[in-house]
């Protein structure tokens, strides 16, 4: 390498860049401790004696948007949807990859096709059907997520399953495994790395999703993004302080999740995109 001399400069540049990347979140954090009327007029000032508001914004915000119930809905919906997606789509992916016939081929292409269809295309009809079938509650929406998330997940699982040598399965058949045993005892463990990827991609999507849950359950059950958006005009006036505090609270779980399984996330995103 020829540029050893430029190293300190480069290093400095990267540090500056990091600051640019972190600053927005820090600024929001800072403002969350200011009185609500001092925020939009001077967002870059540190809170001082006059503007410091303690935890008022947090208590107000939590009360207003019922943050903990929103958090609970977000958590339940995300965890169970992702679990459901992993469980059902891995089975389906294995089946349609291994049992090739006209129907499964068509199915495969339909799943892949669904990946490029923008949500606006089905937003009304899907929420209408969800409502008719009484899926417009935090449990029912999980079924919707399994259906709508199956495209990407099946695509990724299939890609991986194709690379598993058939010999393993043939050997198992000879040993007298039926397909259900075979899938859960042999295939599922092999799928683990892909499952992590699928889980991460779907978690990122479902946790942050706004329009789908808004249209399907949004007026009665508010997830975090819906609750944050509702702060805009749902209470007669927008409380900037509460907004800042709620932004902070909604970022914290993400940061915890990210820092605790960072390696998996980055790996998952890379392998996810390579196949996508």
């Amino acid at each position, binding site marked *: 390498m020829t540029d050893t001399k430029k190293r300190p400069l480069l290093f400095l540049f990267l540090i500056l860049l990091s600051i640019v990347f972190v600053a927005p979140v820090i600024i929001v954090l800072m403002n969350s401790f200011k009185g609500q009327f001092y925020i939009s007029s001077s967002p870059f000032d540190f809170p001082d004696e006059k503007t410091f508001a303690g935890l008022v914004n947090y208590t107000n915000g939590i009360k207003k948007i019922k943050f903990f119930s929103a958090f609970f809905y977000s958590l339940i919906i995300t965890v169970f949807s992702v679990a459901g997606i992993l469980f059902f789509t891995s089975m389906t992916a294995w089946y349609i990859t291994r049992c090739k016939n006209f129907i499964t081929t068509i199915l495969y292409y339909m799943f892949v096709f669904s990946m490029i269809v923008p949500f606006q295309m089905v937003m009304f009809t899907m*929420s209408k059907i969800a409502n008719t*079938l*009484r899926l417009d509650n935090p449990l029912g929406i999980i*079924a919707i997520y399994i259906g709508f998330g199956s495209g990407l997940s099946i695509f990724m699982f299939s890609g991986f399953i194709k690379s598993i040598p058939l010999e393993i399965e043939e050997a198992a058949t000879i040993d007298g495994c039926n397909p259900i045993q075979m899938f859960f005892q042999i295939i599922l463990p092999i799928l683990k790395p892909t499952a992590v990827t699928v889980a991460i991609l779907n978690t990122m999507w479902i946790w942050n999703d706004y329009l789908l849950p808004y249209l399907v359950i949004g007026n009665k059950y508010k997830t975090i993004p819906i609750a944050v958006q509702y702060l805009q005009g*749902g209470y007669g006036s927008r409380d900037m302080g509460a907004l800042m505090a709620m932004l902070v609270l909604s970022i914290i779980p993400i940061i915890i999740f990210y820092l605790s399984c960072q390696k998996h996330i980055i790996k998952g995103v890379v392998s996810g995109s390579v196949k996508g």
Partner: protein
Amino acid sequence: MKSIKKSILLISVLAISLAFTSCGFGSDDGSVNDNTGNSSADNNTSDNKDNSIYYLNFKPEVAQIYEEIAKTYKQETGVTLNVVTAASGTYEQTLKSEIAKADAPAIFQINGPKGYASWKNYCADLSDTEIYQHLTDKELAIKNDDGVYGIPYVVEGYGIIYNEKIMDEYFELDTKQTDVDSVDEINNFETLSAVVEDMTANKDKLGIDGVFASTSLKSGDDWRWHTHLANIPLYYEFLENNIDLSSDSTNEIEFSKDEGFKNIFDLYINNSTVEPKILGTKQTADSMAEFALGQCAMVQNGNWAWEQINDVSGNTVNEDDIGFLPIFIGEEGEENQGIAVGTENFLAINSQVSEEKQKLASDFLYWLYSSEKGKDYVINELGFIAPFDTFSEDEKPTDPLAREVVEWIEEDDVTNIPWNFTIFPSQNFKDEFGTALLQYVQGKKEWTDVKETVVEKWKAESK
């Protein structure tokens, strides 16, 4: 270790899938056919859910009060009241997505004849309801030859709210250039603008940032101008042209009093707490906060704003120092003009929900506006001036702005302006008007363009 983890995962996954098959997919059978599924789905669940009313509330500022009302009502009658409140500016959107649902709102609100036209398939005839029997002035309701479809539940008034303390300080000033000595002497645009401009010249002495609170033009927060303010010049135009408001002759307007609109609007933005250029960032809440904190002396708004003023921490406005001035626009004979009094809040009951639910809905409304507890909420918490004869003379809201409105209503020698904006063609018209106003204050549009937009969009949206 690994295998333990794995088996835990597997077990939980299985448990979840079980949960699905029982609650998620289980209900699939047969009801996929959406077109006809509606009514049958309703009947299926009506057994266990019969005792609830879904109320889609229009007023975000009182959303939390309705939750208390729901609790009380549950205690009193055992009936569950589900109140959902649409975020400001999204009522029509929310109503549209909600009303198509199997569990549709039983009580919703229409904003006048235009609202009735949009939702007439869902408006039940209310002529036999108790609440209608008690409506003081039956003419206020939305009705046609067949029946009554919307009942007003609140009478409201708006004008220019002023802080008398600051006004009095001004009248005491030795540098005062006008010969006005009290707010009562301000009875036309000319006087108003003279006073305002002189106050601006003396704003440092008065300790204010501007005479008027910022003219909030953020989209969704511009209704005070494209709807409320616009009502005044259009009222005079309709009056002058003898327009029958229920006829088709409102399909086009001339906006002939646009100068009047411009007069007062310019006065607002040029004597404001902030530069006109940043008005696009301002929300109603900002304006009310400025007023509450004593940074300005006047703000155009209605009696519903009291809660907002009162809730601002550090509020400096004294209850007794607050009053309404009419919105003068420089029209001849406006000396006798009052504030704008009327309603755009009409309750409707959804004709598409089951008979029982409709009954539950009208029972609730009657309870709210006739029982002691209900009336207490209406008067003291919601602060509504309710147009029903179940309220006696002394059962009026106690907040200062509502009291002021009542005084204006009872005043004999003024003409209060009706709320004709209920016939404005559509939200889209209002939004375009608001955008044009924003561009005008930003210096990107001439006034004549604003006028043209108003006339054209009105016509286009009246189709």
